[in-house]
């Protein structure tokens, strides 16, 4: 009967501890959402950036302003000292100085070094000349394009998911095991007939049980808030997340196998995770690193996990498309679990 099975009781105990600890819920569910909100807002596509030009106050300024605003430019009316200041600070790309009379020449005052000011000059000049009656001899059409899946947020969400799966396994298993050792609970359990296999297995089951919620929360949130789609197979996404979480569970057991206090295990886990936060393509693609180190980066478990998640979410991969990341993750999981169990200390 399930209630009398040690595996069931151990798993339930683990689940209850997590659910009754509000901090755990925040780190698992709240933190990745906050991170995706923050980064999503910071890097969101803002549409075409307006060109801001300054316009020196003067007799002809009103007419010029009407022309420029009509052409979609953003205009700041400035007096001479303010104009100097804004131009120097780059707050306006260019300053239009209207002529004293309607026929007197306009002056464009700008620093031609940055491309924005040359762009501004072209836009302003076109608007002014057309308003003055210029006809363009060649008919042209603009067709604006946004590529779905190519935004920063599309890249970021799978990375955050991978990072979250990694930290969830490492903290949720590594830290918990060492905490049990510090509390002498591991030693106490060792004095009962409980099978050691059940103890470690219950940790893994509790971890896997939290995956649907953990992955689902972020995926659904990203869909609702940023319209990030999972273009590939859901089965493949689930499998990559599962194997990734288990691979890091193995690493967590290895890291926790000997640590005698929670400070040590925190340090060890950060030592394992920190380099991968940077190297494994969470926030920016790992292809930015030199070619010489690519073979190593490609073999890191978080790189494999992120590659797998991105292959499914962005490139629309199915099961076959994630075979390589799955193989790398499985190898990490099996090797680290075997090594961890071998050197594991209960006391």
């Amino acid at each position, binding site marked *: 009967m399930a*209630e*009398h*099975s*040690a595996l*069931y*009781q*151990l798993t*339930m*105990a683990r689940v*209850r*501890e997590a659910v*009754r*600890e509000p901090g755990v819920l925040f780190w698992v569910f709240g933190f990745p959402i906050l991170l995706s909100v923050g980064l999503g807002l910071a890097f969101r596509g803002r549409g075409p950036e307006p060109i801001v030009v300054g316009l020196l106050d003067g007799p002809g300024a009103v007419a010029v302003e009407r022309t420029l605003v009509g052409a979609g430019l953003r205009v700041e009316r400035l007096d001479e000292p303010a104009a100097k200041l804004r131009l120097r600070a780059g707050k306006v790309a260019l300053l239009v100085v209207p002529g004293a009379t309607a026929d007197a020449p306009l002056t464009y005052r700008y620093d031609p070094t940055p491309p924005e000011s040359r762009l501004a000059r072209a836009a302003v000049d076109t608007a002014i000349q057309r308003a003055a009656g210029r006809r363009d001899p060649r008919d042209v059409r603009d067709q604006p394009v946004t590529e779905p899946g190519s935004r920063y947020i599309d890249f970021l969400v799978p990375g955050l998911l991978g990072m979250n799966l990694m930290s969830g396994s490492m903290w949720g298993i590594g830290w918990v095991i060492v905490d049990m050792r510090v*509390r*002498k*609970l591991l*030693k*106490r*359990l*060792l*004095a*009962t*007939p*409980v099978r050691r296999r059940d103890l470690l297995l219950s940790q893994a089951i509790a971890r896997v049980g939290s995956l649907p919620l953990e992955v689902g929360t972020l995926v659904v949130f990203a869909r609702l808030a940023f319209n990030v789609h999972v273009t590939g197979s859901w089965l493949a996404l689930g499998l990559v997340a599962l194997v990734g979480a288990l691979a890091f569970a193995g690493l967590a057991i290895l890291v926790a196998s000997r640590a005698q206090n929670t400070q040590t295990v925190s340090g060890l886990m950060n030592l394992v995770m920190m380099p991968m936060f940077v190297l494994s393509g969470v926030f920016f693609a790992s292809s930015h690193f030199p070619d010489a180190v690519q073979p190593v980066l490609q073999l890191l478990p978080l790189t494999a996990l992120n590659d797998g998640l991105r292959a499914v979410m962005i490139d629309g991969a199915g099961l076959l498309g994630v075979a390589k990341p799955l193989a790398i993750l499985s190898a990490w999981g099996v090797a680290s679990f075997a090594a961890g169990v071998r050197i594991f200390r*209960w*006391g």
Partner: protein
Amino acid sequence: MDAVVCHQLRKVYPGARGLGGGPRADVVAVDGIDLRIARGECFGLLGPNGAGKTTTVEILEGVAEPTSGDVSLFGLSWKKDGAALRERIGVALQETRLSDKQSVEETLQLFRSFYRKPRPLETLLDEVSLGEKRAAWVSKLSGGQRQRLALACALVGDPEILFLDEPTTGLDPQSRRQVWDLVSAYKARGGTVLLTTHYMEEAERLCDRVAVVDHGRVMREGTPRGLIDELVGTPEGTLEDVFVVLTGRSLRDG
């Protein structure tokens, strides 16, 4: 058949090498201990902190391995019959912190699930008088209640021997008495007890025989009354006096 027999038990912890690669300072925690505890007996290991009591008990209850020496419980050895032995012993370690966010009942159900023939939950709750606290989280329990819960966890598998490492350290007098009553009741049911303590009153009250331990060795062994008569020789003498005679120190000096 004796409940516990151990012979020439030794435990050496390898010391850290000094800076500059100096010689290792190994720590000898247990230095050749022989014990024989009969079934139904309550045996006390007495001694100051650091005497080697905890290490000795942990070896006997199978959670630590001796550097050398033999242990047998009911004629079985930990190496060969560990799984069978764990069904037959009950353990309360010094300072185990059970999970704060589980209730009393959940904690007991967890431990019950480990044993082939666990005792009924209600019996256990009654025995340690925690029936009213069954739904309370461990974090809400007093020191005495926690210790009684730890004892209930030790009694889950209906053990033939109970190992108690300083079961009343840090408890107020009333809680201490409740623990004593529990141990006495277990003894009255025919159970064997091995306990460590540095409270002489506890030893005199519960133990049929005691061994005074210091520096990892047994200094003297016998019944409390026998040791007092032999080494102190006055009717109002106590085990405290015995300890002073044997080690030249008072127990509280550590």
